């Protein structure tokens, strides 16, 4: 059994409620931080832990926190990014709906460390049923003196708000999220300035993922060094993986980073092997944006070693032969899956979600979707494959925010690894086997 941190008490009945959560050690980190530690000491522990952002980019959290500007007389904000919209990712939903207090606790401790007096949880519109769960948890935290004025008699005060988005993928991009939180249209801002300098209402702001903030409690309780021991190398700690697709046991699993991909797919503890005993064809390892990898490449590195579930190992081989851990949306596809149809689903998604500010993404995502649609209808030509390749190359890196990259990478990797399948769609559109769409 791998070590559990975030989901350690997931099995406890009634863990959603304050009493049960508190009985199982809940809010100890707040007590410890506020009573015995300075804010700087908390930041120092987080730095030592090697915790990295769990939203997808994997940026070291301690470093992000240390970038936060601290001018006199200007408020600072902590914003929790709960706009989990990446296709294939549903870990935050699980965590927030099952153990809401773990996020509230992590946010209080983190706010204390950053000297924040107002924190926000920006949650996606489709998670409306979680809003009431979170609000209840926050209410309980207020009632028990963990939030509000003069927490634990320390003179520190904090208010925590839940803000519901309207259901746009783009609002998961941190600057678009801030715009939306300010009540404007959710368009990404042009950086610099970064939120650490000028974020919410022009004030220094830290935006962190749900899972990242939840992990802070453990780091404060047990110490950063203890957290750094879990996992492998620079991929410290545990990671929630949303496993979906053609596996026996889809769901959210907390893994200790460093287990092999093969074990993750086949072990009874996690995915439980391939559905109906089919063969593995490909895996999208970190949510729809990351490059898709065929079975041999996802299971083994170029040197024949086993590929591990960690930031470094999954990225091994660069973009030609590797992928990314991303947000941990682990989508497994069996031998019957059509890569082209699956790619079309992704392309349609990115087209729909593009904000339309910058031209490469606005026009390019739509163009790619149209070409893929043509391909599935059996009207494409071989030159369309090259055209697809060129379009993605011209989007990638040239846009305001990472949505352009997110739309380009799946196309690039699908063509790179499964070109023959695209050619099949062009050459024999009638006979091509497009039985099973991806089971998200």
């Amino acid at each position, binding site marked *: 059994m791998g070590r559990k941190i975030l989901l350690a008490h997931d099995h406890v009945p009634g863990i959603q409620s304050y009493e049960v959560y508190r009985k199982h050690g809940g809010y100890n980190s707040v007590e410890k931080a506020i009573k015995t530690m300075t804010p700087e000491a908390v930041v120092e522990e987080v730095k030592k832990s090697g915790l990295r952002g769990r939203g997808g980019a994997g940026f070291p959290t301690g470093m992000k926190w240390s970038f936060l500007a601290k001018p006199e007389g200007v408020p600072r904000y902590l914003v929790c990014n709960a706009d989990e919209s990446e296709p294939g990712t549903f870990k935050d939903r699980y965590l927030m709906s099952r153990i809401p207090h773990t996020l509230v606790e992590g946010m209080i401790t983190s706010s204390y460390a950053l000297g924040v007096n107002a924190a926000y949880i920006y949650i996606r519109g489709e998670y409306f049923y979680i809003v009431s769960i979170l609000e209840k948890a926050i209410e309980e935290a207020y009632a028990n003196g963990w939030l509000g004025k003069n927490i634990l008699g320390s003179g520190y005060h904090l208010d925590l708000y839940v803000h519901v988005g309207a259901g*746009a993928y*783009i609002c998961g991009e941190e600057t678009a999220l801030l715009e939306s939180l300010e009540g404007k*249209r959710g368009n990404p801002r*042009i950086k610099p300035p970064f939120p650490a300098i000028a974020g919410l209402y022009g004030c220094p702001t830290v935006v962190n993922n749900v899972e990242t903030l939840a992990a802070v409690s453990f780091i404060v309780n047990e110490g950063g060094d203890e957290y750094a021991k879990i996992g492998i190398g620079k991929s410290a700690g545990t990671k929630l993986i949303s496993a979906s697709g053609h596996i026996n046991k889809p769901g959210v699993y907390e893994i200790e980073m460093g287990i092999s991909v093969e074990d993750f797919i086949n072990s009874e503890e996690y995915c439980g092997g391939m559905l109906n005993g089919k063969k593995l064809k490909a895996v999208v390892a970190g949510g729809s944006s990351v490059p898709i990898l065929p079975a041999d490449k996802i299971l083994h590195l170029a040197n024949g070693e086993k590929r591990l579930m960690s930031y470094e190992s999954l990225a091994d081989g660069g973009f030609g032969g590797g992928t990314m851990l991303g947000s941990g949306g682990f989508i497994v596809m069996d031998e019957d899956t059509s890569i082209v149809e699956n790619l079309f689903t992704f392309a349609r998604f990115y*087209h*729909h*979600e*593009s*904000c*339309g*500010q*910058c*031209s*490469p993404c*606005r*026009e*390019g*995502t*739509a*163009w790619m979707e*149209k070409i893929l649609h043509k391909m599935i209808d059996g009207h494409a030509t071989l030159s369309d494959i090259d*055209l697809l390749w*060129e379009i993605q*190359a*011209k*989007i990638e*890196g*040239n*846009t*305001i925010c990472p949505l352009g990259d997110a739309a380009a990478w799946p196309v690039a990797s699908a063509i790179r690894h499964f070109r023959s399948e695209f050619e099949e769609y062009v050459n024999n559109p009638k006979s091509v086997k497009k039985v099973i769409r991806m089971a998200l």
Partner: protein
Amino acid sequence: MAKVTIDGRTIEVPDGTTILQAARMIGPEVAPPTMCYYSKLKTSGGYCRTCLVEVTKGSEKDPRPMPKLVASCRTNVMDGMEVGNITSPKVIEARKGVVEFLLLNHPLDCPICDQAGECHLQDLSYEHGSSKTRTDFERRTFEKIDIGDKIQLHMTRCILCYRCVKVANQITDGRVHGVINRGDHSEISTYVEQAVDNDFSGNVIDVCPVGALTDKTFRFKSRVWFTKPVTAHRNCEKCSGKVNLWYKGEEVLRVTGRKDQWGEVEEFICNTCRFDKKSTSDWTIEGPTTISRHSVISANHYEVFKKPTEFKLNEVKPLTIQEGDKS
């Protein structure tokens, strides 16, 4: 002060200058093209991605190159920065891509578009685009909308540069003009097709880089290259009154703000000057306007051509058919 080198040419500029401004100070040869940036409008730029440049050396302190191409209009110079614009193959390639994206849904109806001849998109595609199209999909179209009685919005031609939105936000009072919908369905719109009704609304016509926002008092009156611009002014209570008048014969066909060599107006003008003062007696004429840079009008593109009526009969060579060609 910061020393910056663009395409091998060095200039010293004050801190806080953008790469684009520094390039413009050096001269038009190294200045990246812009479609959405407008120096007179705050927070403009960053959207169209035509001004992308490659930063090959970050600064003297941190010489690492920037990993991605950056929008020169929104990136400040650092001391010792080295930038590649037209000397960078990456930039040329990316810019070609941007032109293709911008034209993807553009109707290419230049022959019937009032902007033709002074259209930034036309210039951009001549200089950086490709001569053929690679898309055979139906282009996005919209119904024409009248914004008030003087301005027409033809969204089909729009490239969503957001300049008019910035004008509406910053120069005119009351925010009645913005972007609705998302992605490639985005469109410029007024709320519930309300008229944009204030004294400076006409400036959205001047800032529009394409023919999406046009002057209804000028529509289809003349091709711009058949009109003669003169510089003129009048005493105006609302604005500076400094304008260009566009003559055809004795008639003033339209009035616009004076544009500099980057195609940006020097001063915004009011609607009275723009729409109501259309006779020579309203104005003090200063002299003919010189139009610089790559304008079709100034380059006399069309003067080398003769109209069919100007040909003399003996100049026209009759088509001869060779014996073997008869089939």
